[in-house]
């Protein structure tokens, strides 16, 4: 009797111990989760705060902007946007220049890039690998190394401070990117489809345009977005190759830094307008972000 009661007692004790252990484990897990959330939210704050500050500051008056204790609650004003995009110092022409240069250079880069990518992906020839790597290396090279010769060349052919000077530059830089990424996309599609189309009497060109291209549509969209973002954001070449007529928005923005100080309100307004389309496209491209950012090295 007494022994069995002892066993039951021991079992109960054991159960209580297990429960306590479980409880302890759960508390620990909760603490770990809180820590994980704290880190994630801290990083979220670090990443988002500057962007938020651009937006908030763009809606402030100068007095609020230069206040030594930051003003967090205020009546928003659209004055900075009005000042930045109207009148004699309007940034609107620069925005239009940026838009035109971005669209044309991206279109050319994607078309020729898709062609070359297909050629490199589907045709075996001597030096294929070397040619592919050379194309990649043209994107990796530091732009400053090419700026002097390109400045001399573009000046010589009379394209300094025109849309075409920058279009040539951005097409070239984005072309290598498009080729490299799209080559990966073409290599991913099964070759059998194209082979059977050839048997069906398609010409090689038709196989490319009617079979292969439609299959890499997501890839085309991805490289178009990435190329556009590059051209839209690019600073160094635009700084050297443009003056008044074909200035793009990144160069226009630096114009707010004057001898009288920086016109922060207008800068923030233009800055916000300049990054907004990029942010939207980035969200649309989530799936291909890694592939695009690593030149297809990581999928």
């Amino acid at each position: 009797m007494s022994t069995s009661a002892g066993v039951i007692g021991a079992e109960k004790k054991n159960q209580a111990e297990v429960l306590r252990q479980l409880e302890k484990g759960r508390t620990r897990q909760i603490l770990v989760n809180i820590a994980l959330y704290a880190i994630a939210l801290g990083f979220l704050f670090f990443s988002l705060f500057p962007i938020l500050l651009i937006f908030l500051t763009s809606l402030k008056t100068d007095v609020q902007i230069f206040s030594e204790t930051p003003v967090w609650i205020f009546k928003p004003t659209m004055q900075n946007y009005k000042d930045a995009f109207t009148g004699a110092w309007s940034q609107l022409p620069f925005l239009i220049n940026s838009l035109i240069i971005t669209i044309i250079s991206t279109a050319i880069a994607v078309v020729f890039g898709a062609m070359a990518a297909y050629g490199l992906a589907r045709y075996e020839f001597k030096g294929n690998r070397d040619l592919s790597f050379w194309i990649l290396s043209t994107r990796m090279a530091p732009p400053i190394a090419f700026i002097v010769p390109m400045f001399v060349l573009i000046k010589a052919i009379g394209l300094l401070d025109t849309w075409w000077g920058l279009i040539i530059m951005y097409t070239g830089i984005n072309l290598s990117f498009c080729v490299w990424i799209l080559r990966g996309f073409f290599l991913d599609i099964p070759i059998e489809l194209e082979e059977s189309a050839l048997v069906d009497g398609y010409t090689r060109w038709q196989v490319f345009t009617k079979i292969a291209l439609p299959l890499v549509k997501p890839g085309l969209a991805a490289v178009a977005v990435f190329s556009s973002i590059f051209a839209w954001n690019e600073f160094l070449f635009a700084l050297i190759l443009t003056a008044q007529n074909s200035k793009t928005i990144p160069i226009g923005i630096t114009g707010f830094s004057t001898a009288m100080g920086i016109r922060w309100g207008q800068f923030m307004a233009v800055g916000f307008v300049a990054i907004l389309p990029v942010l939207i496209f980035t969200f649309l491209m989530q799936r291909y972000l890694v592939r695009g950012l690593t030149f297809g090295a990581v999928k």
Partner: protein
Amino acid sequence: MAQSVNKSRTTKRNTALALIVPTSIILAVINLYPFFYALNLSFHRWNMARPARGYEFVGLANYATAFSDPRFLNSVSRTIIFVVFAVSIEFLLGFGIAFVLNTNLKGMDLIRKIVIIPVMVMPIVASLIWFYMFNQRYGVINWALGLIGVPPQAWLTSKTLAMPSLIIADVWQWTPFMMLVILAGLRSLPEYVYEAAQIDGLSKWQTFRRVTVPLLTPTILIIVLLRIMDAFKLFDLVYTMTTGGPAGSTETLSYYIYIQAFQFFELGYAAALAILMLILIIIISQIFIRWLYKGEAATA
């Protein structure tokens, strides 16, 4: 029969040529031509502001000048300091955050999608917003430090703090890139490897050290290399935030070459510096590519 095979071979070659040649021509114009032009220019003295002195062959004189030019040597060391600190911090932070966001907790996925934003922000806007935040008088950073009792700092005009300030701005923009790619790498690791590790009785730490890290190494090497090559080009942040100052403490290679070419108009000398920069980048990337192939050979 033989003829038709021949014919098909010719059309095949012609199609390949038609596809590849336009791109090759454009890239030759935009890449090969400038390279050889710069190489040739680097052996000449040519000052655009003094055309009367003309275009004069000087052999290796520009290179000799470079190696005894304290400003050039300073810019090399400044660039290397920037690259080493910025890329290591970005990597370590990105690596850690990737593991945090890889947990299956609610909301982590949404956070991952949002924190990627800085990567795509126009660099010139990024540098100006940090310029604003670092302002000694009305910057939000000094204000926040003031709340915890730290006296205001002269971030961008201080010889010791200017470089760290640039690094902070770069870390802000590029840590999400590291995080994103490492996270993608983590998610692509096959499940069975972890099951095997569990069967073998490896602890969590052992699994991390002996399974996760080795499998991630190729991805890590690639993104670190990409970041190093990119950080080497640093120009925008310097141009807007510090213009190389104070006292040259943030003058990077790209910025110094820009000054030589477009403020002193010494195009020949600038070209020589650019060639030296290319050589430096090639050496660094070769080291990485060696590692990468060695790693691949070891795991294979």
